[in-house]
């Protein structure tokens, strides 16, 4: 179980890296934390000819608050570094909770936020969080930069809109209002395993605090990409999220998703769990939210 031979480069300039990445005649791959890529290379499921290490490109390592309150996370920022920053400086508590569910500290200390997004395992936490939080992805390529909404970034299992020659340079999470409530629930067989199913919810209340003005609910592990439950979000907007309201959306969740049978769980079981986790995450989010200021 050793990887096949490949060439390795770790340029310091982003331009140089992008030029090497744009080579149409070589099977080129970037490596960030390697926590998904190296296992695949050790199994020889992935046999790139040239590996481009992102780690020496300084500008890809930025983790900073924007003037508008957004948080930008560069391509080489590890999951552990983002978690530490969120725990120390606050904000985006749902992101912190989601990251705590990724693997183990030994994985998070190397695995990157952007690597998880670019890899797009359909049961991974970060793609669903990016969709729920309306993150924006900055894609760098031979033609310059473009911005893609998280909702449009993930296409199908392990696929994104990234074209050959393109790189996810950073992900930007919009400002987190202090009064926003959140819920994060997932079911995994063992601690640190990839989830069978997970749910991310946020709630913003109105100025009186009596009803939900805006609701977000995104599931993962139930399809080829993170699934945003727009029907549920609309059904709950303008209401208090009491037991009756939550019970009323259970059938909407079950209808909106189309999970598949696999060796980990049947489709029916996944659907049942998705309903339970959705209601739980929405209830947590309502509980944790307060009147808009």
């Amino acid at each position, binding site marked *: 179980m050793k990887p096949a031979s490949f060439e*390795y480069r770790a340029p310091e300039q982003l331009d140089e890296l992008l030029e090497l990445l744009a080579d149409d005649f070589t099977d080129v791959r970037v490596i960030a934390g*390697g926590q998904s890529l190296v296992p695949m290379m050790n199994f020889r499921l992935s046999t790139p*000819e040239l590996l481009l290490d992102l*780690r020496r490109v300084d500008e890809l390592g930025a983790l900073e608050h924007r003037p508008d309150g957004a948080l930008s996370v560069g391509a080489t920022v590890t999951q552990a570094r983002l978690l530490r920053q969120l725990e120390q400086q606050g904000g985006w508590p749902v992101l912190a909770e989601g990251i705590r569910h990724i693997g*183990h*500290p030994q*994985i998070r200390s190397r695995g990157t936020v952007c690597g998880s997004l670019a890899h797009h395992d359909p049961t991974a936490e970060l793609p669903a969080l990016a969709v729920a939080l309306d993150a924006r992805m900055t894609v760098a390529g031979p033609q310059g930069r473009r911005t893609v909404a998280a909702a449009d970034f993930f296409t199908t299992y392990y696929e994104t809109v990234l074209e050959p020659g393109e790189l996810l340079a950073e992900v930007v999470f919009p400002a987190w209002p202090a009064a926003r409530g959140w819920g994060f629930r997932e079911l995994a067989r063992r*601690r640190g395993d990839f989830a069978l199913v997970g749910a991310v919810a946020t709630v913003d209340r109105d100025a009186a605090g009596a009803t939900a003005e805006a609701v977000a609910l995104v599931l993962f592990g139930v399809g080829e990409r993170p699934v945003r439950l727009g029907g549920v979000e609309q059904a709950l907007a303008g209401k208090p999220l009491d037991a009756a309201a939550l019970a009323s959306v259970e059938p909407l969740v079950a209808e909106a998703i189309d999970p598949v049978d696999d060796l980990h769980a049947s489709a029916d079981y996944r659907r049942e769990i998705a309903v339970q986790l959705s209601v739980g995450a929405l209830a947590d989010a309502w509980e944790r939210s307060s009147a808009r200021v």
Partner: protein
Amino acid sequence: MSEHAVQQVPIRVTVNGRELAAEVEPRLLLSDFIRHHAGLTGTHVGCEHGVCGACTVLVDGAPQRSCLVFAAQADGAEIRTVEGLAEPGAPLHPVQQAFHEEHGMQCGFCTSGFLMTTVALLEETPHPSDEQLVDALSGNLCRCTGYRNIVAAARSAERKLAEAGDE
């Protein structure tokens, strides 16, 4: 590929305080570099795809799986392995002593990984919650002990390190 000369990447790393310079093939895993080039066979290789944690070492202070890092990526890094915990003949490191006293091992295959994981945890979080302790240890597999003695050893190590810090 065979008609091309195999690329050799020059690297410099510090392993347990000793500086090493080497030329490595890009596909050489850090675990193999540590075992075969640095000659430190205390770092064990179980699964070679990131699930067992036997190969855990500290890279710039952070616990990492050395089978999921290429040696070339570790250029410039400071690496600590189980051999760095105590000199031969010297008293054991408090974490090693705790695993010894609490019988935190049977066959010992997983032990160096657990030791490095525990050292990393207690260096960053001297008094971890149960949640934090389980989170850290769950990244390492043991097929012998049933984990109870490993958890007891980690708690004992926490007390030993706290006492040593007070002196």
